[in-house]
């Protein structure tokens, strides 16, 4: 029996080797030095100085569920919507608020009224001029439907005082009003009044904005095609972060939905895509080694272990502290992200580039890697060998990897751990029940102020604490960021003392670009205006 199959088997092996050898050959030596563009955290290439015209084919990982920016916190919605819509204000490269559709704005002394003076002559994609009524309709809808609106702007209302002036009246002062109005997700996008009026509970029916690109075609599950809007009203100041002068240097943007990473990789390598988003850290080397491509790193977000502080074993703060004490952040981050260029070790919820919110409070509790202390805390917590359940998903490889490392670290000090792996929707549902699990790793998209992190709104199992609510409330009603400073430090300290979650660090995202691309930026997401294709 063996002999009959030996020859065919040898043929197969030979064929395989030939094919694989041919395909990977000629890619050059593996260099230890990655040729990547790290830039500052605002992540910019050299400013837009490329030729105009042409197409950008973008290999994009998921299709947005909608293009209604008000209602979704989905990254795909954000990335594509911000090419189409604009907001009253936006963020510069240091994540400071600057005017966009507003010419200027004033805040009343009691911090309850924000008056926005609109620029004149700004056109929507349907040719209509932007006026106060459009802003009023859009803002009020955003307040009613967006997660930011529902959490922070209850009772607020926008009113028109003249065709180019809008007043946003708040019920209670809120420090971060402008920051949230500038936040791209969920964006307080300005739609024409008619679009808002026509919308039903399924959402808006047409996608019309004032941005440099307009929606040309949406082929479900295939691509979204945006075209340059010729009558875009650009600001005069030079481009700065997500604001300033925006130019659509290319004529067409194609967001091609390619869920499979290997296909995105093949596409950028073969030149079919000019830009490929969400390249995993494992594949980055391939891009870096390719002379026709360049890698682009941008802040990805924070990743941490979240504890079930409301139900089960981890209601006990000592146990949370124990698990926090064993963590060796270097080991964990290397396991998930391979190389220090892809992550930032910091105990602060916000990166050092944003000094207003950066805080080193509590950092002695970060990455202790102290087995003795952990064991002692386990004892103090009364841990009796119960099984600890870590829930995770393979749909997000970094979350899965850090879960495995934690399991090993805990087992090394005698803790019994069970790792339960589910697919994403199942994981969401199980976490949502609030019971039956103890720890889950989760990554949250990068935010320049920690007030904006989604989990404060009550991520699964997040500690319900008076102190926490008090601190958050104190920050939101502060008069200025300077006045809020002591509270910011206190909140950061609280995070490390009460440990509702253990932050592991901040991550970087990898985007692959063709060498022909210039002017690409990433400010809380990829930006395709001011980007040229010099092919």
């Amino acid at each position, binding site marked *: 029996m063996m002999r009959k199959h030996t020859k065919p088997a040898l*043929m197969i092996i030979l064929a395989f080797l030939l094919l694989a050898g041919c395909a990977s050959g*000629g890619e050059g030596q593996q260099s230890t030095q990655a040729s990547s563009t790290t830039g500052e955290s605002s992540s910019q290439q050299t400013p837009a100085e490329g030729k105009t015209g042409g197409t950008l084919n973008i290999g994009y990982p998921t299709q947005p569920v909608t293009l209604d920016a008000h209602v979704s916190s989905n990254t795909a919605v954000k990335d594509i919507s911000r090419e189409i819509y604009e907001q009253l204000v936006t963020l510069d490269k240091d994540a400071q608020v600057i005017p966009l559709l507003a010419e200027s704005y004033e805040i009343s002394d009691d911090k309850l009224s924000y008056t926005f003076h609109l620029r004149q002559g700004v056109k929507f994609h349907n040719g209509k001029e932007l006026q106060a009524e459009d802003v009023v309709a859009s803002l009020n809808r955003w307040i009613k439907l967006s997660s930011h609106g529902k959490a922070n702007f209850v009772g607020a209302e926008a009113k028109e005082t003249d065709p180019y002036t809008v007043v946003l009246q708040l019920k209670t002062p809120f420090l971060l009003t402008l920051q949230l109005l500038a936040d791209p997700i969920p964006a307080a996008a300005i739609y024409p009044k008619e679009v808002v009026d026509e919308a039903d509970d399924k959402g808006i029916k047409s996608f019309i904005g004032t941005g440099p690109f307009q929606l040309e075609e949406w082929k*479900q599950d295939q691509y979204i095609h945006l075209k340059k809007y010729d009558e875009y009203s650009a600001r005069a100041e030079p481009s700065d972060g997500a604001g300033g002068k925006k130019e659509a240097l290319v004529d067409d943007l194609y967001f091609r939905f*390619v869920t499979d990473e290997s296909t995105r990789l*093949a596409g950028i390598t073969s030149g*079919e895509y000019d830009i490929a988003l969400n390249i995993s850290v494992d594949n980055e080397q391939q891009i870096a080694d390719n002379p026709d491509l360049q890698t682009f790193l941008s802040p990805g977000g924070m990743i941490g272990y979240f504890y079930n502080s409301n139900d089960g074993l981890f209601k006990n703060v000592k146990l949370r502290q124990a698990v926090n004490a064993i963590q060796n952040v270097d080991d964990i981050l290397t396991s998930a992200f391979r190389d220090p260029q892809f992550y930032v070790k910091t105990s602060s919820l916000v990166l050092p580039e944003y000094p207003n919110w950066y805080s080193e409070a509590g950092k002695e509790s970060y990455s202790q890697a102290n087995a003795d202390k952990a064991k002692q805390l386990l004892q103090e917590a009364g841990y009796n060998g119960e099984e600890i359940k870590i829930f995770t998903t393979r749909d997000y490889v970094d979350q899965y990897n850090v879960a495995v490392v934690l399991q090993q670290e805990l087992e090394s000090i005698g803790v019994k751990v069970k790792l339960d792996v589910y697919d994403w929707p199942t994981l969401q549902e199980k976490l949502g029940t609030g019971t039956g699990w103890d720890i889950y790793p989760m990554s949250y998209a990068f935010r320049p102020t920690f007030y904006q992190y989604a989990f404060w709104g009550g991520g699964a199992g997040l500690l319900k604490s008076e102190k926490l609510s008090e601190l958050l409330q104190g920050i939101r009603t502060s008069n200025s960021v300077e006045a809020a400073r002591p509270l910011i430090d206190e909140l950061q300290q609280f995070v490390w003392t009460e440990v509702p979650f253990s932050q592991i660090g901040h991550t970087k995202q990898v985007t692959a670009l063709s060498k022909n691309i210039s002017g690409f930026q990433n400010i809380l997401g990829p930006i395709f205006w001011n980007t040229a294709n010099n092919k």
Partner: protein
Amino acid sequence: MVGYIVRRLLSLIPVLFVVAIVVFSIIHVTPGDPAAILLGEEASKADIDELRSKLGLDRPIYEQFGIWLLGLLSGNLGESIFLDKPVTEAFFERLAPTLSLAIIAQVIGVFLALFLGITAVKRRGTIVDQSVMGFSMLGISIPSFLLGSLLVMFFSVKLRWLPVAGYQPLTEGLWQHLKYLLLPGIVLGIIQAALITRMTRSSILDVMSGNFIKTAKAKGVKEKTIVYTHALRVAFIPILTVIGESFGGLVTGAAVIETLFNIPGVGQLIVNSISRRDYSVIQGSVLLVTVAYVFVNLIVDLLYGLVDPRVRLSKK
């Protein structure tokens, strides 16, 4: 003949009923909530509950099943939660790419298999025969995404002969249409060929030892004619069965290949809908695919009559 067809079509009903119960139960038992997925991670529980109510997901299971079943009887498969259109519309939009791909794959597969199978027969026992059998083993064992990735690496990335992924409908031009379906078609075709080659070879060998072949040889008929005209015709029946089975599999959506090559076909639709827990699309698609499968098998059975006169006569 007509009675036969009618009886076969009627047998669809119990089959569909069983499939309906099974698919409905499985996906409703699986954890995951389409309303939560639709609204996103930051949605409040109140919003999710409201949407669930609107979609009718908070009703008891048997009531949901009953409503769906009644809809089925009037030909209504429901609305897609995510795509905002009727399930039938979503499905039939996706059918064209899958059909094109299935036909291309089947054509490549059959021709390749016949060529290889007959070559193996003609040179049986030699290294050529061994290689063909080796190739067949490879084709059956290799995972489709591995073969797909290898071919893409070679033909798309290295040689740049064909695109990496994507799809253009026939309306954009024949070559444009074929260009995107060629690589995925070859991948599926090779796998098909692997299955059919073995069948072809053994079937022809079987037949070649028959008496009527000996007669033909004795009459001095050329080897070529013997193989192609006489032997193949008889040997084709089992081959036809395999083709029918595998075509059913192709039409039902080569989900992995469609995902890898980004072809908006039925397979991709089902996979995406499962990730999104789009209940109505999953249920509706599985049912429609069952219907397609039964039809294909019916056509194969009718084709028997065409190929083999013995079957035709016995029906009379």
